[in-house]
C-alpha cells in the first residue's frame, strides 16, 4: 500500500498553498500514480507542467470519486537535468494525452510513450520547426487498403478537424483524429489579461457550446483562490444554468442525430424543443447560451420567483412534447436499426482511455462530478447518476434522453424546495484579491463531462499558470475506438453522438 498521508488532499473548489503540495522524486511519483490510478474509483483530472523559476514543476490532480477528495501530487525537473522522463502511459493509458501535451509544450521526452505526437501545435510549443502539416500520421502500406482524409475544412459550418481513415473497402480499420486547427492560445490569454472581467469573457468563449460549464469552472477557481464564499443562491443559480444548458444541448444533439439518419420529423421537432429552452436562457440572461450570466463573485442577473413561474411553464410545455416525440422516435424500427450496435466502446476500453462524462456513462462507468465532487447545489439537491449499458450509438442516444428527464426532475425539485430571495444579490467583484503562491482547482460536470480548471498564483498573488481541461481531451479517443471495424458511412452518426468540442480541445 502507498502512504497517502504525505499527499495533499483538497475538496472541489478549494485552494491550497503551493508549499503544502509535497514535491516528491519522479520514481516515487510514478509509483504512487500507478498505484492510485489502477483503482477504478480514481481518475486523473489534470496533469500539467509549468515553469517555476528555471525548473519545471509538474502537478497532477487525481480525483478520488469515493471519498470526494482531490489528491495533489507534484514532482520537479531541474533545469540542469536531462528533459527525459519514464512514460507513465504504458501503465496507465489514460495519461497519454497529458504526457503528449507536456511533451509538446516543454519538449520533455517521455520514454516508451506509445504515441508521442503533437496535440494541438500550440504557439508556445517547444519544437517550432514542426508545422501542423507535418503531423506524423499512422499509416499502413498495403495494396488492399486505402486512406480517406476528411477535413480540416468541412462541408457543414462546423469547426475544423482532420480525420484520417484507413479503410478496407467500406470498413474502417483505423481512425486518427488530428486537431489543433482552432488553437487560440487561450490559456496564455488568461495570464495576459489582468482584469477578471476580461478573463470571465474569455472563459465564456473557451467552447461556445459549454459557455456555462467553463465559466462556472473559471468563476469557482478564482473564488477559491480569493477565498471568497458565495451565497447559496448563486450556487443554485449556476447549477440551474448548467442543467438548462445540458437539456438544450442534449435536445439539439438528439435532433442532429435524427438529421444525420434522415429522420426529418424527429430532427425538426427536437430542434424546435431546443429553441424553447435556449429562449428561456435568453429571457433570463439576454443571451441564448447564457453568456453574461455567470460572473466572478456574484451576478447581475439573479434568478427570481417570476423567472421560476416562467421556467416551470416552459418546462411543462417542453416535457409534454418531448415525451410524445421520444415515444415515437425511440421506438421507430428504422431509427433503432440505424443506431443499434454501431460504434461500441466496451467498459474496459472506456476505462482504459479515461473517458469522462457522457462518454463514460454510456459504458456503465458511473463517473459524474455532480455525485463524486459535488458543490453546494448538488449537496443540497443530490443528483443520481444514470448509465447506459452497451456503449454504442444507441446507448449515447438513449442516455441523452434520460439525462434530459433527470435534469428536468432535478430542476423541478429545486423549484419546489427553494425560494429565491431577491434581496440576496451579490454583484460581481472583479477586484478579488488572490492568495499568493496558491493552487486552486474547480471541477464542473458540464453537459459533455467534467470540465477542470486549475490556477496557480505567484508570490504577488498574480496568476502564474492557468490550465483548462475540456472533457473532449479524453473523449476524442473514444470516437477513434468507436470507429474500429465500423462502416465509414457510420462515422457521422458516431461523431454526432459524442458531439465533442474542437475548440475545447485546441484551446
Amino acid at each position, binding site marked *: 500500500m502507498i502512504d497517502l498521508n504525505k499527499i495533499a488532499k483538497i475538496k472541489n473548489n478549494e485552494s491550497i498553498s503551493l508549499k503544502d503540495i509535497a514535491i516528491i522524486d519522479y520514481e516515487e511519483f510514478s509509483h504512487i500514480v500507478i498505484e492510485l490510478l489502477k483503482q477504478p474509483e480514481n481518475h486523473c483530472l489534470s496533469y500539467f507542467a509549468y515553469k517555476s523559476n528555471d525548473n519545471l514543476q509538474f502537478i497532477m490532480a487525481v480525483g478520488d470519486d469515493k471519498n470526494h477528495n482531490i489528491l495533489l501530487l507534484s514532482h520537479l525537473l531541474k533545469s540542469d537535468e536531462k528533459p527525459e522522463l519514464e512514460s507513465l502511459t504504458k501503465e496507465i493509458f489514460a495519461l497519454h494525452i497529458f504526457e503528449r501535451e507536456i511533451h509538446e509544450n516543454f519538449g520533455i521526452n517521455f520514454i516508451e510513450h506509445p504515441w508521442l505526437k503533437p496535440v494541438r501545435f500550440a504557439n508556445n510549443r517547444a519544437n517550432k520547426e514542426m508545422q501542423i502539416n507535418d503531423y506524423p500520421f499512422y499509416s499502413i502500406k498495403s495494396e488492399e487498403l486505402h486512406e480517406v482524409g476528411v477535413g480540416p475544412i468541412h462541408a457543414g459550418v462546423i469547426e475544423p478537424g482532420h480525420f484520417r481513415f484507413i479503410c478496407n473497402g467500406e470498413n474502417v480499420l483505423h481512425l486518427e483524429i488530428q486537431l489543433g486547427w482552432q488553437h487560440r492560445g487561450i490559456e496564455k490569454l488568461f495570464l495576459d489579461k489582468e482584469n477578471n472581467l476580461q478573463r470571465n469573457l474569455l472563459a465564456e468563449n473557451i467552447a461556445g457550446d459549454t459557455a456555462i460549464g467553463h465559466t462556472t469552472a473559471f468563476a469557482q477557481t478564482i473564488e477559491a483562490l480569493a477565498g471568497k464564499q458565495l451565497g447559496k443562491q448563486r450556487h443554485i443559480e449556476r447549477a440551474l444554468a448548467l442543467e438548462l444548458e445540458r437539456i438544450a444541448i442534449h435536445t439539439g444533439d438528439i435532433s442532429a442525430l435524427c438529421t444525420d439518419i*434522415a429522420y426529418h420529423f424527429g430532427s*425538426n421537432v427536437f430542434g424546435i424543443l431546443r429553441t424553447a429552452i435556449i429562449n428561456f436562457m435568453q429571457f433570463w440572461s439576454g443571451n441564448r447560451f447564457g453568456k453574461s450570466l455567470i460572473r466572478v463573485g456574484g451576478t447581475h442577473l439573479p434568478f427570481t420567483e417570476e423567472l421560476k413561474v416562467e421556467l416551470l411553464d416552459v418546462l411543462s410545455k417542453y416535457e409534454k412534447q418531448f415525451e410524445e416525440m421520444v415515444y415515437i422516435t425511440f421506438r421507430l424500427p428504422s431509427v433503432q436499426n440505424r443506431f443499434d450496435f454501431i460504434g461500441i466502446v466496451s467498459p474496459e476500453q472506456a476505462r482504459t482511455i479515461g473517458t469522462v462524462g457522457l462518454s463514460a456513462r454510456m459504458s456503465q462507468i458511473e463517473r459524474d462530478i455532480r455525485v463524486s465532487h459535488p458543490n453546494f447545489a448538488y449537496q443540497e439537491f443530490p443528483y443520481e447518476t444514470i448509465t447506459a449499458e452497451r456503449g454504442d450509438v444507441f446507448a449515447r442516444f438513449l442516455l441523452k434522453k434520460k439525462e434530459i428527464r433527470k435534469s428536468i426532475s432535478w430542476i423541478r425539485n429545486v423549484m419546489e424546495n427553494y425560494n429565491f430571495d431577491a434581496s440576496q444579490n451579490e454583484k460581481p467583484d472583479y477586484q478579488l484579491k488572490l492568495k499568493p503562491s496558491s493552487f486552486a482547482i474547480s471541477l464542473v460536470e458540464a453537459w459533455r463531462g467534467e470540465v477542470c480548471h486549475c490556477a496557480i498564483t505567484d508570490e504577488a498573488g498574480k496568476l502564474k499558470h492557468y490550465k483548462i481541461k475540456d472533457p473532449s481531451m479524453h473523449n476524442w479517443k473514444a470516437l477513434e475506438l468507436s470507429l474500429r471495424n465500423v462502416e465509414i458511412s457510420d462515422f457521422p452518426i458516431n461523431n454526432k453522438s459524442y458531439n465533442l468540442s474542437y475548440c475545447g480541445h485546441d484551446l
Partner: protein
Amino acid sequence: MISLLLILLSSLFFVGIIIQTKAKIAARKMPSIFQPLSDVIRLFKKGAIYSSTTSIIFRAAPIVYFSSVLIAALFIPFGGNVGLLSFYGDFVFFAYLLAIGKFLMIIAAMDTGSGFEGMGANREALYSMLVEPAFFILAGSIALFTNNVSFQELFSNLHIVSSLSYSISVASIYVLIYIALVENSRMPVDDPKTHLELTMVHEVMVLDNSGFDLALIHIATWLKFAIYGSILANFLIKNTWSIYEQIGVYFVIQIAFAIIVGILESFKARNKMSKNPQWIIMLSAIAVVSFLTALIVAHKIILN
C-alpha cells in the same frame, strides 16, 4: 407525343411537391412548388468550373446522362397512345439507356480522382446492379401476363380483372415505387438532403459538377421521376376512358406519387449502408412473387 408533353410538364413540379410535402409534415414553411425550377434557372445562368484533373469524360457525362433520360422518356406510352418510339422489346432498350447515362456519371465521378466521389461511384454502381433484376423480373412478369414485349402493348393489353392480377399490380406498383426511389437516389437508400459526404451515394458523385452541368443533372432527376410516375399511371389508366379523363387521372397519379415519396421520406430513417443491398434484393424477391403469379395466370404453372 402527348406522353412526352405530359412527362415534361409533370417533371416541372414533381420534386417541388416532394419538398412541399416534407416541409408540411415537418411543420416548416413550404417553399414554392417551383423552387427547384428557379434553382435550375439560376444554375443555367452560371458558368461551370472544371477541375484540372478531369478529362473529357467529366464534361461529357452530364450531357450524355441528360440525353439518355430524355430519349428514354420517348418510349413511354400514354393510355392508348403510342410513345414517340416503340418497337419489339423496347423496355430492354429503355433500361439500358438509363444505365448508359448512369455508367457515364459513375466513370465521370471516378475521373475527378476524389476519394469521396470514388466511394459514391462504387456504391451507386452496386445499387444499380442490384436493382436491375427487380426491374426486369417485373417487366418480364407483365410481359408474360399480357403476352407482349413492348411498352405500348404491355400496357394497352393489361387488364386488371381477376384477383390474381390485382395481386400482380399491387406488387408491381410497390416494387416500381421503390425502384424509382433507388434509381433516383432517394430515401431509404440515399438521403438527398444530407451534407455528410461519407454517407452520400448520388450526391457525392456530383460534388464537382457546377453550373450548366449540375442543372442538367437536376433536370434528368426530375425527368426520371416523371418517367416512373408515367409508368405507374399506365398501370392504372384504362384505354376506354376519354382522353381528358386520362389526362386528369394521370396528373392525380403523378401528384399522389410525389406525395407518397414525400411521406415515405418523412417518417422513416434511412437504411444502414450495409443493409442497402439486402433491402434492394428484397425488391427483386417481391418481383419474383409477381412473376410466379403471372405464370399461374398464364397457365404456365397449373395449380391443383
